[in-house]
């Protein structure tokens, strides 16, 4: 059933009906489409090749995460958070653990904080690497860049598998710390991966930064101004590409991010090229953080000894905890009535809210640019539809 009824097409301001303009064509870049990174649908009205109207349709992967969480205990929802943004599962765990720690007032020991930063930044690396591969695949370089990107991602997934036992669904964090400590030899392997990463980034930059096709297709496409980004609540690399200096690691200074010195890259134009470069530069900053965190990783307990996990009943109240996930500001809003399971469990999905301006970005562009603009927003449907 099309969201744009016949009536709505005629109301679209059609340019003067001179003979040079053909009819409007309404198509749906539907749930099953190679370029929509999952089951995301857009109803598009085209005048020739230019986009005249675009309405996103969500809900094809609405898995009722929040309803299930209301019947689940606090700890029981932790593996579900892996499946929210299923590319970076550890940062989801981190955001949920942070929210519950604020709700119940649990402290986290030093070593656990360092482990969280190390695994969190590794997740950011593999997410941005994957995204660059997918973005270039959307631009037509089908296969090759994705192969390089996934080669790096596999190295990071091996680290996660050695540490947490699972490649993608790590379920690594607990309220007050982490689930398990580093196996021996993990740190050397991690150092090797982190030292090898800049070579991959240089390779990508040398090949693609001044590549005319990339620049021609992405510069000036899908522009988001600074005011638009703030008003639409856009967060993460997409907001910083439009010049909004708002990185939660620097703003909230959550966990121990104030101990590390790293810079926050900012873009000026807010087009697809800036967003692409934002991810590359952020990967370099993550490598800096990882080096510092690995250098002074202390010994000590990894879980706050006096948090009881069995029947964990926080006092009645509510808390909103948020972190800088690779896609943007990922927040968990928990209302507790003192029972073992949360009264209300809400996830603030950065991917969904970053799509608010999808129509403004795509108006007047070509159909082929929609694919790139959607790719540069970096959405994951598990988080968009929850």
């Amino acid at each position, binding site marked *: 059933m099309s969201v744009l009824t016949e009536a709505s097409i005629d109301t679209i301001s059609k340019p003067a009906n001179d003979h040079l303009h053909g009819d409007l064509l309404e198509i749906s870049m539907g749930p099953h489409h190679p370029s929509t990174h999952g089951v995301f649908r857009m109803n598009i009205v085209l005048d020739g090749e230019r986009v005249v109207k675009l309405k996103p349709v*969500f809900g094809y992967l609405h898995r009722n995460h929040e309803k299930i969480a209301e019947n689940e205990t606090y700890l029981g929802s932790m593996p579900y958070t892996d499946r929210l943004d299923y590319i970076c599962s550890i940062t989801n765990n981190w955001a949920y653990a942070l929210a519950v720690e604020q709700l119940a007032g649990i402290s986290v020991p030093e070593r656990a904080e360092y482990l969280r930063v190390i695994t969190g930044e590794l997740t950011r690396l593999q997410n941005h690497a994957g995204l660059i591969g997918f973005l270039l695949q959307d631009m037509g370089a089908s296969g090759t860049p994705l192969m390089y990107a996934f080669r790096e991602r596999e190295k990071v997934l091996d680290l996660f598998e050695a540490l947490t036992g699972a490649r993608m669904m790590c379920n690594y964090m607990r309220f007050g710390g982490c689930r398990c400590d580093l196996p021996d030899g993990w740190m050397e392997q991690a150092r090797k991966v982190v030292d090898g990463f800049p070579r991959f980034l240089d390779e990508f930059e040398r090949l693609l930064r001044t590549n005319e096709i990339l620049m021609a297709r992405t510069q000036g496409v899908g522009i988001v101004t600074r005011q638009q980004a*703030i008003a639409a609540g856009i967060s993460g690399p997409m907001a910083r590409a439009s010049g909004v200096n*708002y990185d939660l690691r620097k703003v909230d200074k959550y966990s121990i991010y104030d101990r590390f010195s790293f810079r926050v890259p900012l873009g000026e134009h807010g087009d697809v090229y800036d967003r692409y470069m934002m991810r590359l530069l952020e990967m370099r900053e993550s490598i800096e953080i990882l080096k510092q965190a690995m250098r002074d990783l202390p010994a000590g307990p990894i879980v706050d000894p006096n948090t009881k996990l069995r029947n964990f009943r926080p006092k009645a109240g509510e808390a909103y905890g948020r972190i800088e996930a690779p896609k943007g500001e990922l927040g968990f809003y928990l209302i507790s009535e003192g029972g073992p399971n949360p009264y209300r469990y809400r996830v603030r999905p950065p991917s969904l809210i970053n799509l608010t301006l999808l129509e403004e970005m795509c108006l007047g562009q070509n159909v082929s640019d929609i694919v790139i603009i959607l790719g540069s927003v970096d959405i994951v449907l598990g988080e968009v539809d929850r």
Partner: protein
Amino acid sequence: MNLEEIKSQIEANVPGCSLEILPNGSPSGQHSLLVDKEHALTVASFLRDGASPRFDYCSNVTGVDWPLKEISTKQKTKKLVDGVEKDVEEVIKTTTGNYLEVVYHLFSLEDRQGPLVLRMRTEDRAERVHLPSLTPVWRSADFQEREVYDLFGVLFDGHPDLRRLLMWDSFTDFPMRKDYVDPDDYEYEPTAHDEVLKRTQAHYAAQGEPSEAEGAR
């Protein structure tokens, strides 16, 4: 940024709005500000433009369902029982809830200020579920308000495009409400125990099949 100071600011600039600070029991200390329905839009535009830390970034919009709840609290009161003063246990039944609530988390980008929690409540959960939409003030509330409408049934007046966000359009009930009963697309659980067993028998009773059905039908 403390809540009282912002409350006084709002009361100074938005005449006639009734604000109330709701304390928050958890150590996170994020107390919230209850705004009445009529002045919510003016309060919101004031918060975004006029307030001293300008709250220009609405990060999160959440719907919460508070069904009718009886709370019986025991109270010791001094009562004259046949002339003798005795403290008597009295059970007082108070009812709370029976409204839908929408919670906004606002942040200030320039001054890096923490969450200001704004709450709005509907009169009841059946007919009068209208609330003013704050999308004209903060564009980020667009999709999230559509989701609150889709899953809770709060009608936002003034929302540019209020349609169901997640469920399909011909879906009629509001699934995230506490009293929502999801459809009985029942499937047998290998180990039949407690409420799964009850649902199994209820299912078969409803379908009128003999519950001793042997093997595949």
